[in-house]
């Protein structure tokens, strides 16, 4: 038993499936972006914007995001603990149950079975599946950590544990509902309470699924890639505890100016601004880890992905607090600015780190060299340019529409009707389609590169494996 090899087969499978669901998420994203500009592309009842948009978001978060978390965590936990997974069988169950859950989610959402709560749309039977899935994952990670060979736990393992606990609490509390039938339930909370619970979940799902895990990956893969350790362990400790403390207060910044009690909104606003500190703690830790290594930005494509990724994290965590301030929120909320913000986080930060992590993993788990570094560079530029077109065009659109919504005549009446402001959005929505297509082209290059690596890549020189053995 103790002589078992590290389980890389499970990592290979999770990489494959997360990439497949990532492609689905981006493809559906492009489709819904086209439906925004061309309403005749809605085909009721199943293929309408209202039903497809949750498939886009959930495939992105749960299929791609969580899929990559599974792939990388199952790898990292074995390396950092210097021991194989606690249970290979449980990991195998987790893989198949993961795919079953994602497929069941997509099918039920297409059929219109939805709770409507954002990023938590799936109805209660799927919620039960997600809980089982998460518990299976949690047991394997925690048990592997408990039997670790290295007493000291590296920072990545802390982020993992916090993410596992955080997601479990958030998801189950927000899922509470009374079923009326197999695929229809009513929230356990009503009105303003329901809103407050939902955004406590919604914002912290971003913290626990799309911030802590990518940070765990970043803290692991950056030093592994550059060959130099992280700048400051102490800074990472401070950032960790303050991050997981402050995040949970901020959910109501999604509900500024709504009937949610003012004091909750004010706390959310204050803590959102304070969150800049721990977020930038990690950003600086990343940058300072590059001291004397900046030449690797030119030489090593993985460093480029990782540093651009953490840069977008830095931008995201400055823009987010700005939007969480009442006056700014009053202007910008409900416009296209907000999806532009989210997509900088998902396409820029989370996905950049995910692509880098997978590129790092592929030679280790397949024993082959990456097929083409020029293609990896091409992909880098496609996803970067695609994302920038996407976000920048919609930031402009958001400011434009917000300005028009607020424009007043000298007699105190509104200058524009709603439709006059909406039609101004079309050129920007077309730009988004264009940005999305470029991003998708980058993803296709990625998949091609992975496929060629796995099928035709040169076998790895054995030396890497022994270097790898250091931890």
């Amino acid at each position, binding site marked *: 038993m103790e002589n078992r090899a590290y389980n890389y087969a499970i990592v290979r499978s999770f990489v494959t499936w997360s990439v497949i669901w990532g492609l689905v998420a981006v493809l559906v994203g492009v489709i819904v972006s086209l439906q925004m500009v061309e309403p005749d592309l*809605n085909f009721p009842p199943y293929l309408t914007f*209202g039903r497809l948009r949750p498939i886009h978001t959930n495939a992105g978060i749960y299929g791609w995001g969580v899929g990559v978390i599974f792939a990388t965590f199952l790898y990292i936990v074995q390396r950092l603990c210097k021991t194989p997974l606690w249970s290979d069988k449980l990991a195998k169950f987790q893989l198949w149950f993961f795919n079953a859950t994602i497929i069941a989610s997509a099918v039920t959402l297409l059929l219109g079975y*939805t*709770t409507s709560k*954002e990023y938590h749309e799936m109805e209660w039977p799927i919620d039960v599946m997600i809980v089982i899935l998460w518990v299976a994952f949690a047991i394997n990670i925690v048990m592997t950590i408990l039997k670790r060979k290295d007493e000291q736990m590296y920072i990545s393992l*802390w982020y993992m544990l916090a993410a596992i606990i955080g997601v479990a609490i958030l998801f189950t*509390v927000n899922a509470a509902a009374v079923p009326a039938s197999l695929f229809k339930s009513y929230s356990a909370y009503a009105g303003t309470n329901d809103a407050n619970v939902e955004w406590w979940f919604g914002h912290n799902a971003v913290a626990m699924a799309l911030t802590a895990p990518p940070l765990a990956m970043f803290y692991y893969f950056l030093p592994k890639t550059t060959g130099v350790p992280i700048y400051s362990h102490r800074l990472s400790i401070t950032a960790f505890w303050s991050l997981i403390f402050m995040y949970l207060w901020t959910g109501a910044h999604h509900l500024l100016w709504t*009937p949610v009690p003012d004091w909750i909104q004010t*706390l959310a606003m204050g803590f959102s601004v304070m969150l800049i500190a721990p977020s930038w703690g990690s950003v600086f830790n990343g940058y300072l880890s590059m001291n004397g290594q900046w030449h690797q930005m030119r030489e090593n494509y993985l460093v480029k992905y990782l540093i651009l990724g953490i840069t977008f994290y830095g931008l995201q965590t400055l823009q987010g607090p700005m939007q969480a301030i009442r006056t700014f929120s009053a202007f910008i909320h409900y416009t296209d600015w907000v999806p532009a913000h989210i997509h900088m986080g998902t396409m820029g930060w989370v996905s950049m780190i995910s692509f880098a992590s997978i590129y790092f993993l592929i030679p280790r788990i397949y024993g082959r060299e990456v097929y083409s570094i020029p293609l990896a560079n091409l992909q880098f530029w496609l996803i970067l340019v695609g994302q920038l077109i996407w976000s920048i065009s919609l930031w402009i659109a958001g400011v434009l529409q917000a300005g028009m919504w607020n424009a*007043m005549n000298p007699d105190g009446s509104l200058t524009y009707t709603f439709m006059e402001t909406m039609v101004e959005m079309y050129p920007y929505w077309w730009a988004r389609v264009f940005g999305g297509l470029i991003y998708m082209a980058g993803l296709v290059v990625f998949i091609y590169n992975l496929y060629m690596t796995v099928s035709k890549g040169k076998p790895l020189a054995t030396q890497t494996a022994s270097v790898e053995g250091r931890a």
Partner: protein
Amino acid sequence: MWEKKPVLLIVLATGVILIGTIITMVLPFAWVNTEADRIEGVKPYSALQQEGRDIYIREGCNNCHTQTVRPLVSDVLRYGDYSKSGEFVYDRPFLWGSKRTGPDLARLGGKYPDAWHYQHMESPRAMVPKSNMPDYGWLSANQLDPQVIQHKMETLGFPFTAEEINALKGKTEMDAMVAYMQKLGSDIPWRQNAKTEIVGDLTNPYAGVGHATMEPWEELYQQNCAACHGEHMEGVIGPELIGGDYDDEVLFEIIYTGIADGGMPSFSNLGTDKVWKLVNFVKYYHLGEGH
């Protein structure tokens, strides 16, 4: 110390996560949806309205429409009185949304007549040119199932009568949707309270302007009036406008304040200048040159 003790780390992390959670998420239950924010007159949904709400959820309308008016000048002018906590006590789930691709719907109830909604759902672009809303005419083909709806009402604990459930027979999903649209935000008498009183004498600032001056005002008419009164004022949902002989001031008042019982919305948010332009356009433009 916790760096070497995973169980301790889990316990500490859970504790840290729970502090903000308890204060900003659990604690508010002590005040929200209690007597503190109760509003007289807010009623649970009827069986038909609740079914409409469930269809609204099923079709993901909340992805493009919000249902909360903020206490901001431009929000209140555009949509109506700002939303109050007590108005949502029967909303499971809440449907405030996060994006206004289309307009906010929190105060939609009573704004338009039913016929407007049926036509708009059937073909949004026929009513609002350049809208990007999908067609929902197909909802008319789906019959409601009274048994299922009764069970939902029981699950929610909302009051209903046997007649009410019986009356659902033969009704379609479209009927339910329109019933829901008309209930939105109308539990409090905000429309009466917000009704504009016109004081003092009204004088038509554009009295006697030429045909050419009015020409650019046609766009105002097409944007705000044509959906109900027809592209050429021939009347569709609303009456024909040619041949009406209201005085200028009366016509101004009708457009500015609307006709609450007649399904005519108020256009006060256009401002007096645009309403006067509409008065002149509606009354005189079709008469041609040199009237």
